[in-house]
């Protein structure tokens, strides 16, 4: 029994049961497949998290976001600037106690370089209902090339606990339909790539 020493002292020379052996081979091959599939997705998939990140002082990041918002603001909502970024350009989003700032307006099918960082504690960027979830650290500026594939109004929730106001920390992204047909074309090309 499993509570007594093995019957044969030289238990490591006993043959393995066939059913066990088959299962070990299946488990090993399945593991190998799952391992290779993660690598493969870097080549065949369109959803791979960027590793581009820079160390930055929180105050320096805050200044960059302020400047970006001032330059590109199109209107205001609930006292928060709504910022429309140039397609293909840099977009800055700031997490702080307790808001995502500013509100962004993007165009469907366009790619943006989204910069993410926090100026105080860690936050969780959670784009809903799309369900893209990325950790945001103070002192690290994470740059992600993001292409919206849906239009409409999207919420950003914080899903890393950040103190008593954590559940009030939200933000917003508007995605507008592309104005030109060529954007659709770019998206189609992006799919092929």
């Amino acid at each position, binding site marked *: *029994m499993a509570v007594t020493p093995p019957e044969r*002292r030289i238990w490591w020379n006993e043959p393995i049961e066939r059913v066990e052996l088959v299962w070990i081979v299946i488990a090993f091959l399945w593991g190998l497949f799952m391992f290779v599939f993660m690598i493969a997705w870097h080549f065949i998939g369109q959803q791979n998290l960027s590793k581009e990140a820079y160390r930055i002082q929180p105050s320096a990041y805050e200044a960059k976001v302020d400047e970006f918002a001032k330059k590109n603001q199109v209107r205001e909502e609930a006292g928060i600037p709504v910022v429309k970024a140039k397609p293909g350009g840099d977009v800055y989003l700031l997490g702080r106690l307790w808001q995502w700032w500013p509100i962004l307006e993007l165009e469907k099918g366009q790619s943006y370089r989204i910069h993410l960082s926090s100026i105080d504690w860690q936050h969780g960027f959670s784009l809903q209902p799309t369900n893209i979830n990325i950790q945001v650290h103070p002192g690290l500026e994470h740059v992600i090339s993001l292409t919206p594939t849906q239009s409409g109004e999207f919420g950003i929730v914080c899903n890393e606990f950040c103190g008593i106001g954590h559940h009030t920390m939200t933000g917003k992204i508007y995605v507008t339909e592309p104005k030109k047909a060529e954007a659709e074309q770019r998206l189609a090309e992006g799919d092929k790539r």
Partner: protein
Amino acid sequence: MTAETVIGAVPAKAEFRTCQYTGLKVDVAAQKLIIANAVAAVVFLAIGGLMGLLVALTRWPAVHLLPADWFYLILTGHGANVLLFWIIFFEIAVLYFASAVLLNSRLAAPKLGWLAFVLMIVGALATNVAVLQGDSSVMFTSYPPMKAQPHFYLGLILFAVGALIGCILFFATLVIAKEEGTYEGSIPLVTFGALTAAIIAIFTIASGAIILIPTWLWSLGFISDIDPLMYKVVWWGMGHSSQQINVSAHVSLWYLTAALLVGAKPLSEKVSRVAFFMYILFLQLASAHHLLAEPGMDASWKIVNTSYMMYLAVMGSMVHGLTVPGAIEAAQRRNGFNRGMFEWLRKAPWGHPAFSGMFLSLVFFGFIGGISGVVLGTEQLNVLMHNTIYVPGHFHGTVVAGTTLAFMGATYIVLPLIFQREIVWPKLAKIQPYVFGIGAAGISLFMMGAGTLGVARRHWDMTFSDASLGFAHSAGAFLMMGLNGVFAVLAAIGGIIFVLVVVGTALFGQKITSGHKLTFPLFSGGGAIASHYGSEKSPKLPGTIVLVSIFFVCFVLYYFINWKYLSELWLFR
């Protein structure tokens, strides 16, 4: 070098009794320590479980019980009390049992065992005080730059030092048993599994010390800054690896229960032991599971680590997933339940709470905790669930429906054999694993469902009613959180029954005397089997093959469904 020189001046005299059911020699000093640690474990389970119920009732949108500050406070306490204190106290009891009792040996340095116990109690109380004082609601993970009171960290450090001493006593007892020749050949499989757990525990505690001591000094003002990313890498060397202690410990208890209740022998000692060995080699890499959505981590680092080196540790668990039911099937067929594919399973001792607890734990751990863990830990898929309530869904599948249920089941063996008390309220005890198990499986599944729909973890208000920019979750997400609340109540009822039965038995249970017939008997052929142990001889296992095939199909389907979800997301690189 003798055992005495290894562990210092320890009196070699020990008082033994012989167990009338198993024939094992039980060191009375070890028995007392096992009882003390098991009782402490149950006390912290009661506290932490109650906190868990309060958390679930707050996250149930229709109830929304606690105010926000209390919610975050209680959630912090819930994590520490059940994930650390309940489980590790119980594991220390398992270590003493698997070394001293199973090897017929005396326990090394019982006085140090009591020192370990006191340190763990003091540590657990200090952390609880810090949490209840209200200014350490930093969650179990305490990610900097969020800061808790110094005694929050100090309590965890003291607790870890105590647990470390417990592990060292386990190793020392192995040395003594070998030295004094209390067993022949190799250590039993259950002890081997416990050894795996203890080795991983050393790694875990070392990681904890490396990160918690500087963090404690930081909270005292001696260190100016803790890098949040570095903290995560090292902290999860403790936080996730400690879950691998649980896996090793509860898999050992699966083998133990199968052996004692149906007379199961390992199909092959070699395969089961190598599967445990895989845990030691690869499970510590799991820190990466918590860094997949982090800035600046390289893909190759993530892939190698998150997959436990090509899923070799997952393979270890999949092997146990075959060998444990396989050993039970082989034993049951030998016991005469040979008809059809599943008579062995139908006629298993389902009325024995240790068996039902063990088997439900095996099923839930594999199907819920295991599959969701692999999916959650896949590099790209993680972005779908990172920090959503899917994550607690996953680990309630492993730690509650898996580990806790297995520990509860084992308790029904420990009560008569070690406490030497007859179990009070056997009818309640009989249904307890089902009530708790179904409740725990329900909360796991519904949290996973809600997480798939984007609900955040550690979040007081999914309606965002106080937020300046509102967001409305889907009706399905609300339904999932409501069902989570319902099943949490069910799990809590199961937990309350468990605590009542344990406390009732410890205090009022009939003392077991010589010749007493147990309400929940062990396998009757126990003595005969024990004299003729060893690996199974070419068994036929059609039932197990079917069960394992169902598992594999579920695994593959669920894996690809999630890739489908991922491929529908916005594009990012």
